[in-house]
């Protein structure tokens, strides 16, 4: 930040004395900024951006970006802070747009990188508090900036990581719903997100495994909660539903196994799914594989 301030001061010094004397709104805003009077700096820079003499100059937007960035830094968790961050992002992009000599570009990109990182962190925080729509919105904003500022990033991998984390949060809520949560909606959400990951990378072991476990656990949960008074007719209906869920789990678990045959959890999963499907022979086959794997590890 000190380096940025130095740049700003140097730029200020470059402004002809005569001009400074006229106290144009950009210079006044910069002076207020240097004096750490951010409300005044904001007021003045807004005058500048509303004035056709200044609003097509890169430095106007560059200063505006720093003023709003600092307002954000001072009020990160407030609405004004978040709106200021948005203003800062827009300003830095505008500064780059008008910066035909590329005097500010590198500095603007650094600031944008920083702001993009704060958006990523907020996306993660929103996921932790189960604000999924907000999280997606922050992540998309982060991605949008990074795509311009740091081209060449592999977004597939990052998007997958984000979605896997989001799915794990959905799963946690599915297992521990809050008052008002709709388990069906959460369950559908889990399936949707894992399928989105598999659309991006059908060989993703984690998504294949977790989706299979989700289906399997749903089936197990139904069996676990069966009323002991159930008659044959109801029992058969439930069994059909459960078999369908175990059947849905199988292809994804087999895929996870194909991708990594030495993962113990997958072997346990396959054994459990086949057991649920009453295919005892296949279940024992994977139990045997697990046993061999564990013996191999011990030796």
């Amino acid at each position: 930040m000190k380096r940025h301030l130095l740049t700003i001061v140097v730029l200020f010094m470059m402004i002809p004395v005569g001009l400074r004397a006229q106290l144009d709104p950009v210079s006044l805003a910069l002076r207020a900024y240097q004096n750490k009077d951010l409300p005044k700096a904001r007021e003045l820079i807004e005058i500048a951006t509303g004035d056709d003499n200044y609003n097509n100059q890169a430095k106007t937007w560059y200063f505006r970006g720093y003023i709003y960035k600092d307002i954000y830094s001072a009020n990160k968790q407030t609405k004004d802070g978040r709106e200021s961050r948005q203003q800062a992002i827009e300003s830095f992009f505008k500064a780059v747009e008008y910066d035909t000599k590329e005097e500010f570009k590198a500095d603007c990109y650094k600031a944008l990188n920083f702001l993009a990182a704060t958006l990523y962190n907020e996306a993660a925080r929103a996921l932790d508090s189960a604000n999924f729509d907000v999280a997606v919105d922050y992540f998309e904003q982060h991605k949008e900036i990074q795509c311009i500022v740091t081209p060449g990033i592999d977004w597939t991998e990052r998007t997958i990581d984000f979605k896997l984390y989001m799915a794990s949060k959905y799963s946690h809520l599915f297992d521990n719903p809050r008052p008002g949560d709709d388990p069906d909606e959460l369950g559908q959400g889990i399936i949707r997100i894992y399928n989105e990951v598999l659309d991006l990378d059908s060989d993703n072991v984690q998504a294949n495994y977790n989706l299979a476990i989700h289906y399997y656990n749903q089936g197990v949960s139904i069996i676990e909660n069966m009323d002991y008074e159930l008659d044959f007719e109801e029992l058969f209906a439930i069994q059909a539903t459960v078999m369908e869920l175990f059947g849905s789990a199988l292809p994804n678990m087999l895929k996870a196994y194909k991708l990594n045959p030495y993962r113990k959890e997958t072997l346990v999963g396959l054994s459990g799914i086949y057991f649920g499907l009453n295919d005892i022979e296949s279940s024992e086959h994977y139990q045997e594989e697990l046993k061999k794997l564990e013996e191999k590890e011990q030796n």
Partner: protein
Amino acid sequence: MKKLLLIISLICGLTVISLGQTMNKLNTRAKMKSMYISNFAKYTEWPAEYKQGEFVVGVVNDDALATMMETMAKTKTINGQKMVIKRFSSPSEITKCHLIYVAGKASGEVQPYVSKVSKFSCLIVTEGAGLIDNLSAINFLTIAGPLKFEMNKKTFNNQELIVSTLLENLATKVIK
């Protein structure tokens, strides 16, 4: 900036460790079998002297099923009789039962238990290929898919038990 990157990497770290979903542990087949067994009892009629007192279910060499049945017995009654579960691991332990489930795929494993309970009006349930032919009254099939069972009406008759038409109709195969 370094601090910020650290925060990001910490978040990524959290992502990695929180991805694996936990698999629910439940012996699904044992739970299903326990539900079937209670329904077998519901659609079977015992001689008058068996219709009072406790309804005793014996379980041989299947702890998972015995545990499920014990949980069930806490709340459920069979034809108005309180359910009691007895675990047996050798033929010498066998006492009077209304119903007995004998685990074991080979007839040699099952036979000694069947001989012991044959003097009672006991509904014998097994799970193994060929056991229905001359040992049990009901046998769970070990084929993939929904749990199915076959029935031997002769064994029902020998044990002085009356099976309902509904149960008979649900069986995959009935030996008459």
